[in-house]
């Protein structure tokens, strides 16, 4: 019986030993676990790998150590032998405790009793071997080490409120970044640029106009419904094949895009990324050695060497000169266009080409007074429509020296160049001038001029004679020359010629009335000579009668005949160097011509609006009763530009006042609407507003950390303010509240003044 308690003690000892050892091993295993975790974290291994590694290391260590120490197989014998070794009081007989009483010799029994006594005395002091202290120390050290190691890693996702959320969030961010990183973008510029296709992972793109962009992602498992929204409008679903999502598009305009996808839980929107299109500019042409206007003298070298530099973004494919030669002047100007190619290089190609061309004006057929216009035109290799550009037109003029002389002599003030024929009015004026200048001029000159006027008078007479269908057989020898001249026009349209007479009517207005009165007086004096001449004229005209009928009525014909006869006389006196005597005839002739032109006016019937007949009874009564007021109405509600941006701006102002910024869903909605307006603006200037757009999306999706919200809001506010246009001043109604006493005061003041 007495052995029982000692057996029990022994059992307790064994259990205690096991427990202590187990704790020790566990502590050590945990330490190993922590250290491995810390190290793999520093190496920024995948989170799963980290866990597997560290837990594996811990478990392995536990197993090795526990096998080494044989913890699970420790029996009473081991305890007994340990006690025998370490506690001499037991006299190496503690193993007797394990034996049954009946198997023992009496001596052994005696010894056992003694042993039990000793053992019970000893029991509280028995210490079994362990390293629990060292293990605890190691454990503490490993915790310190873990903390130290983990502080090296980036403090990335440890700012989120609850640990549960943080885990999810970190997972989402992990997915997001890995998703975005998995994007492979291939940019293929158009073939003509000669730029090879390139691959990039940067989602902000800068591309050559017309490039094709190819997006492709292999992260196809968890993501569904992957879309790209272009410039906030077009959403395009990515095509799915076995391993990837992909899409291809070509761009000619700048813009931006956003990626949208669903994962298992929710829909994700990425940031906005810009697509900046670099335009292919048309070629630029610089002409180096030529002014736009060049005037050459006949003696100058008539060869012009043209040098020009052509440049383009990629390559120039073609260039030439378009030259136009203009010849003649006035209505008879003629143009000839030629396409000239450059001398060097023969084939224009390359990014920057220096071209030359020697332009030989003589070969182009330029003569003095002619002009050459030319411009250079260049094409680049853009497809499908080549970009092209041209210079300003250059002018090269060859001076006409002959013309220059006339312009110097033109200083006389009167154009002496003889017209085809002079009008009667002009002859009168010239005759009067001649008489006036009689004293200053020599007799020869006077006679010469008088004779000349006589010639003019003859030409005029012949001209009018044509209208009469006159035959000039009766003329003086000189007439043949005149008719030769006259012939040029005799076949022209008669009415057109008649037009000249018409013009004279206008000229007539220029002459003072006084002179016509004088003419009248003169006419009165000289009636008799006319009368004498008349029979002769009559005789002549009877001779011509048969042919006359075609042109004019009888009265006109008679007048014309009379005029022609008078012209004869006028010419006679001029030829006799006596213009004074000739003048009365001239005036008379003028008067007759004028009458003829008046008579021969043609009546043209006007067609057009026929007003309804007036109601006589209503006329001038001033009755307006049936006339109604007219009115027009127009609605131009003040153009409210960017209403949502304005609203959102005020929301930001309000949020910035708050200590802790919390954005309500209504405010988020407002931001989204403003974002839509901003995206329209961003389309034109993607670089400028894209960041603000991204911030707006981030704000509405609560992706911005609390301490960065103020900065984000300020940046968005800045963008909004920039977008708002500067408007002109508008009058505004002024607010005022007058106290009744003030109003009374003002009224009474007014009463006092009156």
């Amino acid at each position, binding site marked *: 019986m007495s052995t029982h308690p000692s057996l029990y003690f022994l059992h307790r000892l064994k259990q205690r030993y096991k427990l202590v050892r187990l704790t020790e091993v566990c502590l050590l295993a945990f330490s190993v676990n922590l250290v491995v975790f810390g190290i793999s974290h520093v190496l920024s291994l995948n989170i799963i790998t980290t866990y597997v590694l560290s837990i594996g290391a811990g478990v392995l260590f536990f197993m090795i150590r526990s096998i080494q120490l044989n913890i699970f197989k420790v029996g009473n014998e081991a305890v007994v032998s340990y006690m025998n070794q370490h506690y001499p009081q037991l006299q190496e007989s503690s193993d007797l405790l394990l034996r049954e009483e009946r198997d023992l010799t009496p001596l052994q029994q005696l010894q056992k009793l003694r042993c039990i006594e000793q053992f019970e005395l000893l029991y509280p002091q028995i210490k079994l071997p362990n390293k629990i202290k060292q293990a605890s120390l190691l454990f503490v050290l490993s915790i310190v080490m873990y903390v130290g190691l983990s502080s090296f890693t980036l403090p990335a996702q440890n700012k989120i409120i609850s640990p549960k959320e943080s885990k999810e969030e970190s997972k989402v961010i992990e997915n997001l970044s890995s998703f975005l990183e998995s994007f492979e973008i291939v940019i293929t510029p158009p073939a003509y640029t000669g730029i090879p296709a390139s691959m990039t992972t940067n989602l902000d793109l800068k591309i050559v106009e017309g490039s094709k962009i190819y997006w492709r992602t292999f992260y196809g498992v968890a993501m569904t419904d992957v879309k790209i929204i272009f410039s906030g409008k077009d959403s395009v679903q990515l095509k799915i094949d076995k391993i990837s999502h992909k899409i291809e598009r070509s761009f000619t305009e700048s813009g931006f895009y956003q990626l949208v996808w669903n994962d298992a839980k929710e829909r994700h929107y990425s940031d906005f990324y810009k697509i900046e299109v670099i335009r292919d500019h048309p070629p630029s042409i610089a002409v180096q050695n030529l002014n736009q206007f060049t005037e050459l003298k006949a003696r100058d070298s008539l060869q012009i060497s043209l040098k020009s530099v052509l440049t383009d973004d990629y390559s120039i494919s073609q260039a030439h000169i378009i030259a136009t030669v203009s010849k003649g002047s006035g209505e008879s100007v003629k143009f000839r266009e030629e396409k000239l190619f450059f001398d060097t290089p023969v084939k224009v190609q390359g990014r920057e080409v220096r071209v030359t061309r020697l332009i030989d004006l003589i070969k182009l057929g330029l003569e003095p007074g002619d002009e050459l216009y030319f411009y250079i035109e260049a094409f680049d290799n853009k497809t499908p429509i080549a970009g092209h550009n041209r210079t300003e037109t250059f002018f090269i003029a060859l001076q006409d020296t002959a013309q220059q002389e006339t312009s110097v002599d033109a200083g006389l003030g009167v154009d002496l160049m003889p017209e085809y024929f002079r009008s009667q009015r002009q002859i009168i004026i010239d005759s009067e001038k001649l008489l006036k200048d009689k004293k200053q001029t020599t007799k020869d000159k006077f006679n010469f001029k008088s004779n000349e006027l006589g010639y003019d008078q003859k030409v005029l007479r012949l001209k009018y004679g044509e209208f009469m269908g006159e035959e000039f057989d009766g003329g003086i020898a000189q007439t043949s020359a005149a008719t030769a001249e006259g012939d040029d026009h005799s076949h022209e349209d008669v009415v057109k010629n008649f037009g000249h007479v018409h013009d004279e009517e206008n000229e007539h207005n220029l002459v003072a009335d006084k002179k016509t009165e004088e003419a009248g007086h003169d006419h009165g004096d000289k009636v008799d000579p006319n009368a004498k001449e008349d029979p002769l004229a009559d005789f002549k005209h009877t001779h011509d009668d048969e042919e006359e009928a075609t042109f004019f009525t009888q009265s006109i014909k008679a007048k014309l005949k009379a005029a022609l006869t008078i012209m004869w006389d006028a010419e006679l006196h001029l030829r006799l160097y006596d213009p004074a005597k000739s003048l009365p005839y001239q005036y008379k002739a003028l008067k007759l011509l004028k009458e003829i032109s008046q008579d021969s006016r043609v009546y043209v019937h006007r067609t057009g609006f026929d007003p309804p007949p007036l109601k006589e009874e209503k006329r001038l009564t001033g009755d*307006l009763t049936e*006339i*109604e*007021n*007219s*009115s*027009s*109405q*127009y*609605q*131009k*509600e*003040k*153009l409210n530009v960017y209403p949502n941006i*304005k609203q959102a*701006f*005020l929301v930001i*102002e*309000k949020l*910035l*006042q*708050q*200590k802790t910024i919390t954005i309500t869903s209504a405010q988020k909605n407002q931001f989204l609407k403003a974002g839509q307006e901003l995206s329209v603006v961003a389309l034109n200037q993607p670089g400028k507003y894209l960041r603000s757009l991204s911030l707006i999306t981030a704000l509405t999706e609560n992706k911005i950390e609390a301490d960065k919200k103020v900065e984000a809001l300020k940046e968005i*506010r*800045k963008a*909004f*303010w*920039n977008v*708002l*246009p*500067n*408007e*002109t*001043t*508008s*009058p*505004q*109604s*002024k*607010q*005022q*509240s*007058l*106290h*009744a*006493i003030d*109003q009374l005061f*003002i*009224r009474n003041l*007014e009463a006092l003044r009156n």
Partner: protein
Amino acid sequence: MSFNTLLPLELVASVLVLLAAFFIGLEWRRKQSLRVLRIISVGLMILALAGIILQPAYTVEKSSSIILLTANYDQKKVDSLLQLNSSATLKHIEGVKPHKGSKLLSYSDLYSIQDDIQFIVGEGLPNHALDVLDHKTFQFIPADKTEGITQLHIDESILSNRTNAIKGLYYNESGKTRIVLKGPTGREDSILIEKTGNQPFQLSFQPKQSGNISYELIMKKIDGNTSSDILPLHVEESKPLRILFLQSYPTFETQYLKNFLTAKGHQLLLRYQLSKNNFRFEYGNLPSQQFSRLTNELLNRFDLVLLDANELKTLSPTEQTTLHESIQNGLGLLMLDVDPSKETKGRINFFPFQVQKIKVDTTSLVLSKTSFTLPALPYRVNESSSAKSILANKSGILSGYKNQGLGKIGFQFLQQTYQLTLAGDSIRYSNLWSPVIENISRLNISSSKIKIKNSFPVYQDEPIDIQIISTLENPTLVIDSIQIPLQEDVMLDDVWHGRVWASEAGRHMIHVQDAFHYYYVSKAQEWKSLAVAQQIKANQVLSRDSETTASEKIMESKIVDPVYFYLLFVLTAGFLWLAPKL
């Protein structure tokens, strides 16, 4: 000896004498013992009554005086004061460091010792503490000025798309200071202050939209010290005007003005006279309505009438009276194409200006920093006349107005201003016409007006006094959706007062039925110099005449405690009651 009584002294005295005579007479006739004693006690009782009613006071020399130290006090000044007034005790207000064993005084104890405060040294007491003091008998010795903005003036109404200005004074201690006004996108305007002392500054800005917008004033010292204060502004919403054009015939001028105003959202009605009874009407942003006569009802719907001189002639006398009445009631009238030389006698004068004829029919103007020439009528109104100028140059006033009752009559001598629009200069065109139309138009009278009586800035936990002028029967004051009680002014009708304590920093909205107002509670560290300057000014106003020096004796009047009179009254009356029973 003086009396503090509500009733006239003579009245009280005569009544009491009569009363005394009556009671003495009664006692005299009563055939009982102790007659002399009874008569004396009647006299004493009447005296006690007199004491109770008249509240006699006597003047004594002020027994104790306190020098109160407030923030930033000058120790030297305090020492000199102590030298002059050795009996004075030093006390310092909460939050101020003590000096020479001064005792702490909390704001709540201020009331009880108010009569003893002889000097206040430093930045003075805040408004709420000054309110507590019934008798302000202290002399205020201000602290030295601190560097910063000491005065700030912001226009009462700030309008969008217009150049608004902030004016103020900056006390510059040393070195150069740059003051920058920062808007939502950055710098709007800045000024460099080079001289020391109080320097005026003005900064301008042009808000692009209405609403509550926070600007920032940044003070940069040349040595790199920078401080910034938030400047809260409320940009007013623009309200459309209703304008009536009465013209005898359409002109380019009115057509362009019409286009300009309709594009800005104003409501226009134009009437041209085609013949005596036929008109052409044009409506801009208005439903169509026709009229042949001017009536009060019609004119009351409009804020401004543009009238040309020809059309004025065709108005009937009744129409002219109607127009005149409407102007008296607030309508604005803008006269175009006037010919002051042809005055219509016997009729109502719609052109009450004294003009001077000049020879030229063009004028050159400077607007938005560039000069240009426009045709103008050959008349000018003199600067000296009572006309208020809107646009003027050396030759005189080109457009201006005069108050007529509650309304205004104005004129515009400039002609063919549409040339500016044709030349593509819509900015100058709008700058030319906007002030003319705005100044002459009817004032938009709202039923209530809110006024904050505190000057900017206000800090947390400070009282804000609100005054409301309202024609409403029962105005309700709501601040941030909390209703605040209002007290009607004792003396003035329609004036109400309310008080509220500023809550957390930021913008708050006051709202009385149809009127809104915003106030801003600044953060404690903002606008320090301005607040101090204003506090010093408030204390200076209340300070006793500074000529009385510290050594002079200060007398104060003390009311005799009425308890003694009550006691005397009870004793004597008691004796009179007891005497017959003895």
